[in-house]
């Protein structure tokens, strides 16, 4: 059976090796009544700078949580580098070490220093003794300092995290994720609340890291303009559905797909909005 499929579609394996994230017909809900996401299909090529855009409550954060195993779909399948996300699966747990996740709330440990927060990203590389005595190897501390200067926090490494400004906190969260030596970076609206200049600085920083480390960056944005400016592909989520996916190269749209809905349905939704 499998063999037949292969012969029928010889390019199948070639294409699929490039797909770091694949979701097919994924639905999930927080309660049993409403779907937070419904029948999501998407596949993300390794090294892409992927953006997810949508209104508040559309399900963007939920989509990210599915990508690092923090949420499990109620139906459909997800493959992250060909492994189904599952915290209890040793193989996936190992993969989590290299999935950088910057939640909307950032999730910094407030009462410890900037440096200590960033070193958390290196925890999976410590052995039991090192982590018991909080003894990070010298090269990890050097790496942490390199990342601190990369994100522009030099001089603040010994400041408690709660004493930082919003923008500085975001830089710490980014640094913690980079400390993981990530292959995938998930970032949830990390520039939405920042002024334009700082937002650009942070976006450039991630774009640089992405190119240098061959990262797959998946970033959630409120602002479509920002998404189009930085991303190669943009998915638009509305009310738990992926309605559009756009491929961008420079200033030109090279690919335009309607997602899980037909064009008429999308138009219908916008018509509804207009009526309201």
């Amino acid at each position, binding site marked *: 059976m499998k063999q037949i499929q292969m012969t029928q579609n010889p390019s199948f394996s070639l294409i699929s090796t490039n797909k770091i994230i694949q979701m097919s017909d994924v639905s999930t809900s927080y309660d049993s009544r409403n779907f937070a996401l419904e029948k999501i299909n998407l596949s993300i090529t390794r090294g892409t700078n992927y953006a997810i855009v949508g209104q508040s409550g559309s399900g963007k954060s939920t989509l990210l949580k599915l990508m690092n195993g923090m949420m499990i779909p109620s139906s459909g399948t997800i493959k992250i580098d060909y492994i189904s996300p599952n915290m209890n699966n040793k193989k996936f747990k*190992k993969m989590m070490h290299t999935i950088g*996740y910057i939640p909307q709330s*950032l999730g910094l*440990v407030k009462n410890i220093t900037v440096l200590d927060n960033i070193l958390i990203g290196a925890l999976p590389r410590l052995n039991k003794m090192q982590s018991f005595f909080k003894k990070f190897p010298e090269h990890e501390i050097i790496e942490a300092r390199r990342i601190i200067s990369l994100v522009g926090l030099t001089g603040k490494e010994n400041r408690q995290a709660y004493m930082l400004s919003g923008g500085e906190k975001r830089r710490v969260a980014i640094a913690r994720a980079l400390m993981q030596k990530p292959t995938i970076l998930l970032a949830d609206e990390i520039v939405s609340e920042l002024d334009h200049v700082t937002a650009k600085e942070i976006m450039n920083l991630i774009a640089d890291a992405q190119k240098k480390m061959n990262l797959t960056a998946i970033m959630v944005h409120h602002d479509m303009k920002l998404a189009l400016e930085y991303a190669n592909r943009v998915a638009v989520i509305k009310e738990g559905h992926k309605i559009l996916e756009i491929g961008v190269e420079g200033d030109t749209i090279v690919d335009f797909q309607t997602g899980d809905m037909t064009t008429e349905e999308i138009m219908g939704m916008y018509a509804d909005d207009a009526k309201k």
Partner: protein
Amino acid sequence: MTPKNNILIGVIIGLIVITSYNIDANPLDFVDGFSNLGIILEEILVLENIIDNTKYVPSALLAMFETLQMAFIGTVVGVVIGMPFSMLAARNLNSKFVYAPIRTLLAIVRTFPSILWAILFVIVVGLGPFAGVLAIILYTIGFVTKLQFESIETIDSDPMDAVSSIGVSKFQLIRYVVIPEAASHLLGQMLYMFDYNVRQSAILGIVGAGGIGFFIIQYIKFFEYGKAAVYLFVVLIVVLGIEWISVKIRDKYIVKSQHGMEVTAK
């Protein structure tokens, strides 16, 4: 005030009357016996008695020092032993199969007042402060773990989620997120526990488990109220002193960092 509240107050007053009758509580006894207090006070407050009794102050201080040692060792060891149990009892860190039995165990430990532990350990290890220390340790474990796991359960889930998503071990999560996030609470609870254990240790001597209480009960037994008063006075001063110091420490280190937490709700 609603009729429901009135009924509730009526019921409470009724219960007080019934239970008083049951335990033989009689206000008249109290009034009659009040004059006894006068006799004791008279003995204590006569000036030459006071001067005479000051010579017991050094030995009282020594006994109080033993009490403080008992409280200190008992608190530190109890808190240290209690900590892993608290981690296992916290619902946000464990499955039901882990926290439920641990909580039950701790609840059983908690049902014993320290004086009962003291009696038990006097039987096991004999009279003296060691029995008292063991009693304080057990009592501390039962009591402080409840404070600890409750505060662990209230820590912010955002950093917990963010760091778990890295795939760290549970030990690392506790060491690098849970303890730092709960540190100010845990420290505050330890101070509170020490405060409380000093008072308790002062009493445990009554059952022969060391400390200043042993002398106080001896003097009372032999109607030497003046000496007992000196010892009680030393307890009062030291307890007040410790209370004052722990308030200072709390203000300086704990309140400040909690303020910081509030500021950074985001």
